[in-house]
């Protein structure tokens, strides 16, 4: 016999409780599948923040506009990676494009993703930066960067003033298209879970909306923290009106996301369908720490309280900054916990509604903690490269 398998089986069998079906012994959706909606959520959230500036002309948000776009791009590039690593055969992923299956939400995602990446994000960033790119193409001190910029101008080195006006209009139109695309991109992730009707923890039409608002909360929190960090790292003043406005949007998103989550829970409790007993045991037991403590108290109520205080009272800049930074970080952790609670939580109970499964998070290995960690760091590396190439702030004049 395969000794290792038998030993692992014995060990796992010792940890499950109640009655479970044999095929539930191994949790199929690992931490990488937790990471995936988390990363796409950050994309959608960051992009929506950028759109607010553009579409609704919120001028104070200017300092975070480009940063939000670059953040969205950096996370979007990495977002499919957890799926690829989870499934194993990245070289086959083109097949979902080559042989499209219109009845599979999962397969259609490939197109949504490509559309959003190519037609929306890349174009919008390019149009917004074009003026700078043309300038940098002959002023940047590094020949390598000059070369990259030259390629990025697509050979149009002497743009007309009118062309920038046109760019502005096109960019605006792109954002208007981009907003529903971003919502589609993330709504789809919720849709996938919401439409798994066999699982009462997932199956609710509210799921896409909940995912969307928590995505906004996490994306805005991410940009808020990045903005504060970059100001600190570059040793420039934070523009408080901008930060305050970002925090206000953040608060709105957290409140809506949290209310929806609670609404859903209360509704489940009130309906008290036959699966509610086990869900209750789940919430009070295996998910207590990650759901009640981290997601609800630390990840939602604390940020609402802290940022709420800044809305009610006139607090000094310093205090507000601390409150924002703490709330943003808590919310990022809380929303990760929310994804965990949805993805892993939904696999913790048996379809028999009479037993609990178990998930052993390994350290190394393809789907282990280490690879999840690397995948979470990668977007920041990509962002670093993007910030190097396309600094969202005014570039210091060359050879000053």
């Amino acid at each position: 016999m395969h000794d290792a398998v038998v030993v692992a089986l014995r060990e796992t069998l010792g940890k499950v409780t109640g009655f479970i079906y044999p095929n539930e012994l191994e949790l199929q959706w690992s931490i990488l599948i937790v990471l995936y909606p988390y990363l796409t959520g950050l994309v959608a959230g960051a992009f929506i923040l950028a759109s607010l500036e553009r579409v609704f002309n919120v001028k104070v948000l200017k300092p975070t506009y480009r940063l939000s776009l670059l953040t969205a791009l950096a996370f979007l590039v990495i977002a499919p990676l957890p799926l690829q690593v989870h499934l194993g055969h990245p070289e086959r992923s083109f097949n979902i494009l080559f042989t499209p299956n219109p009845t599979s939400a999962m397969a259609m995602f490939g197109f949504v993703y490509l559309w959003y990446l190519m037609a929306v994000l890349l174009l919008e960033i390019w149009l917004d930066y074009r003026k700078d790119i043309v300038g940098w193409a002959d002023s940047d001190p590094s020949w390598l960067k000059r070369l990259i910029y030259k390629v990025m101008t697509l050979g149009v080195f002497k743009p007309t003033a009118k062309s920038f006006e046109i760019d502005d209009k096109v960019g605006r139109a792109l954002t208007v298209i981009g907003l529903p695309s971003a919502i589609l991109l993330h709504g789809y992730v919720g849709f996938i879970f919401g439409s798994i009707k066999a699982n009462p923890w997932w199956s609710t039409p509210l799921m896409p909306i909940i995912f969307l608002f928590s995505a906004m909360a996490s994306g805005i929190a991410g940009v808020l923290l990045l903005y504060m960090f970059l100001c600190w790292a570059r040793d420039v003043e934070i523009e408080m009106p901008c930060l305050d406005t970002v925090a206000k949007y953040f608060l709105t998103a957290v409140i809506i996301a949290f209310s929806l989550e609670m609404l859903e829970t209360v509704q489940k409790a009130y309906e008290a369908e036959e699966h509610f007993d086990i869900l209750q045991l789940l919430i009070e037991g295996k998910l207590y720490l990650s759901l009640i403590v981290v997601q609800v108290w630390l990840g939602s109520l604390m940020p609402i309280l802290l940022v709420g205080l800044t809305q009610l009272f006139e607090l000094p800049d310093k205090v507000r900054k601390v409150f924002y930074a703490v709330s943003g970080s808590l919310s990022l952790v809380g929303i990760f916990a929310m994804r965990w609670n949805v993805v892993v939580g939904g696999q913790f109970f048996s379809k028999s509604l009479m037993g609990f499964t178990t998930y052993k998070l390994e350290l190394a290995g393809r789907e282990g903690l280490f690879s999840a960690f690397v995948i979470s760091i990668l977007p920041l590396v990509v962002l670093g490269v993007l910030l190097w190439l396309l600094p969202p702030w005014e570039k210091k004049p060359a050879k000053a």
Partner: protein
Amino acid sequence: MKDIEHLVRVAVIFLTAIAFFLVARAMIKPPDYGKLGRYRAGALDDIKALPVKYAGQASCAGCHKAQAKEKAGSSHRGMACESCHGALAAHAAAPKGPKPSKPSEAEMRRFCLRCHEASVSRPAKFPTVDDSKHNPDVACSMCHKPHAPKL
């Protein structure tokens, strides 16, 4: 024209990319994809051509009449021979070849306990024993006959 030159260039790049995609698709997509469903029709023949690994109970019974008869009257009757002995099509086709495996005495306990270890996740009626209490350290086959386990 000068004002939108850059947009035209982007459009050309996009169209080229789409054209490239379509050409690549035409080259990569197997011609028989989609004929029968969302898969390559030829895959069926490929799968059919794979060597068969299991012979099936009926074939074992032809040569091992004693074990088959013994098992047919026991509570293990519902289990195929190969669920305990492993895939043996090669053996059934050439019995003189390498001897098929059977669980050794050393691994016997672990082998039987795969199914018979007490666990709450098993139906209450299913006969189970506690490894540490049920005659520990003695191979199950010392007392139970694998093909007719009832004592």
